[in-house]
């Protein structure tokens, strides 16, 4: 079994491993900002700080043969699904060690062995694609499940509406997860749509729907498990709204000064890492010492990852010309 698949198995099987993965994501994302400052990362990048529980809770309930279509805000999901930090950071740094060899970048992470389609940088673009993956499962008679993760802002775009309706009328094994972090870029949700409980939009397609606490990995798991069971057993699609919050700005330049006073602090009280820590502590699965140890180990690990990625090579000019067309006979290995 590959290291990646072992990483995946860990979050599927062990709640401490899930906690550790959340720490990994937190540590990873916090490194990114620093790397921008040094010029090691260019372009843009979208952190998922505060949304670690959604990523990990989702990965815990899916099989590697299931399919996830996520967005530019995809580092956490990639790590949770099992991609190595090197392959994610390497991609963000445009290095050959990256999961896409450095030609994709932060917004396009992919590992088909772990069920991660290339994340899309087009808002809503992944929704119909996930429905299509589910269509393949259905047509092939497989029990796979496809998942589309997208934001609150994406729920206002046409592809959302069309994709959900299509999934509903075809009864596709797909789960739509609206990661409602209350902001689309710099716009608060109340300025872009009158409906705040976005899962209710599923009514337009007579699709089952509910909200979950996206700050609690166990709540995420429970909600995802319900939808996965429905999808896998032929019961069709579900719209899940995960109530979350983006602790950082939209993308690297953004200081998030538009947030109402106290809003961040209110949500930080429900920091998913804290929520899980308290749970694991209270149930005796972790101690304060162990937590400190995990955090400091992870910090060291991620520093090592940074070093590895920095040492990795730049892509060759030839790699710009590769992977545009499929070589004859090499289809979908």
């Amino acid at each position: 079994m590959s290291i990646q698949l072992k990483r995946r198995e860990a979050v599927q099987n062990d709640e401490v491993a899930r906690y550790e993965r959340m720490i990994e994501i937190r540590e990873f994302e916090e490194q990114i900002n620093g790397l921008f400052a040094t010029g090691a990362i260019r372009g843009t990048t979208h952190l998922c700080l505060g949304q670690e529980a959604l990523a990990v809770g989702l990965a815990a309930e899916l099989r590697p043969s299931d399919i996830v279509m996520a967005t530019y805000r995809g580092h956490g999901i990639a790590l949770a699904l099992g991609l190595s930090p090197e392959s994610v950071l390497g991609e963000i740094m445009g290095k050959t060690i990256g999961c896409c060899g450095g030609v994709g970048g932060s917004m396009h992470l992919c590992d088909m062995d772990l069920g991660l389609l290339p994340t899309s940088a087009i808002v809503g673009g992944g929704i119909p694609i996930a429905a299509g993956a589910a269509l393949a499962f259905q047509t092939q008679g497989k029990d796979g499940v496809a998942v589309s993760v997208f934001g609150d802002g994406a729920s206002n775009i046409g592809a959302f509406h069309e994709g959900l309706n299509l999934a509903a009328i075809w009864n596709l094994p797909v789960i739509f997860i609206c990661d409602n972090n209350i902001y689309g870029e710099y716009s608060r949700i109340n300025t872009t749509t009158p409906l705040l409980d976005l899962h209710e939009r599923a009514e337009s397609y007579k699709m089952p729907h509910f909200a979950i606490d996206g700050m609690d990995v166990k709540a995420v798991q429970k909600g995802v498990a319900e939808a996965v069971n429905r999808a896998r057993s032929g019961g069709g699609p579900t719209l899940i709204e995960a109530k979350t919050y983006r602790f950082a700005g939209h993308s690297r330049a953004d200081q998030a000064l538009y947030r109402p006073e106290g809003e961040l602090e209110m949500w930080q009280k429900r920091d998913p890492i804290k929520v899980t820590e308290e749970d694991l502590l209270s149930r005796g699965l972790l101690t304060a010492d162990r937590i400190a140890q995990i955090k400091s180990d992870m910090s060291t690990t991620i520093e090592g990852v940074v070093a590895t990625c920095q040492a990795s090579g730049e892509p060759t000019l030839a790699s710009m010309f590769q992977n545009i067309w499929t070589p004859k006979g090499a289809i979908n290995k």
Partner: protein
Amino acid sequence: MSTSSVMRFRQAIVAALADEMRADSSVMLFGEDVAEAEGPFKTSEGLLKEFGPLRVRDTPISEMAFTGAAVGAAIMGMKPVVEIMFMEFLGVALDQLVTEAAKMRYLSNGVISVPMVVRASCGSGLGFGSQHSQTLENWVAATPGLKVVCPSDAQAAYSLMRAAIQDSDPVMVLEPRILYAERGTVDTSHRIEIGKARVLRVGSEVTVVSLGQMVNVSRAAIELAGVDAELIDLATVVPWDRETVLESVKKTGRLIVVEEAPQSGGWGSEIVASVTSNLFGTLKGAPFRITTPDVPVPYSGVLEAKFVPTVEDVARQLKESIASGTTPKSWWELEGLK
């Protein structure tokens, strides 16, 4: 086994779809009214019946959703064919083809292939008006990762459709709507490779490159003009067959592109530009394009008949250009219009 028979262009499409669906259980078809109704242009006759509702599906009016669904299904091992009823409707779904499908392989380090086909009827001549009659090759043309073909007769409709479905990458098939009812002989064993132009007439005086419904017009114009033209049906717009076209122009020294696209910037500009860059020193006369005027497609039958290049007008320009070596005036310039 080679079987030849006469059939309509649209029947050739049905036959190609059916043959591919028989040969490969991962081929499926979906789009608006393609299943129960067998296609708004009857291009899926009998398919639901033979292949059943799992593989032949009607969709809601949701081009973005079903084009995107084809992307996802193709990645996961299906070979979906989707129908965009009129090419214009891609205007609500272009993202999925150009920005998603065409880049999936690149963005997966070569792991993913997207063997999907998007069929779309296109072009003028049937009185559908300005929002249902355009050729819009430009929307999809300059997109690395995407192939674009356009059959000009029943044989090409059959062979290119099979090639498109067999192709491991996304392929857009532009179907000139006015040809659906045209009959032609189809040899089901005949293959046309994507990326290969078809030399339909060998000649020495001038190379005429054409596409879609303009191929018949060009052929008739060559007859009428009585010139010894080499007629090339480009067949694949992307990646177009540089080799065949260049070889021909090397021989004839002249290039005329006859196309159903606006004067300012159709696919033919690329052909003329590329040939000129490559063969400049060897050309005997100005290479040029015969196109539609820069106007929306008019509804009136009288106007629409004149909108696309006509046999007479192409013949005139063929003769004039061979005689003078320069680019003839368009009919609207001659009429002092615009």
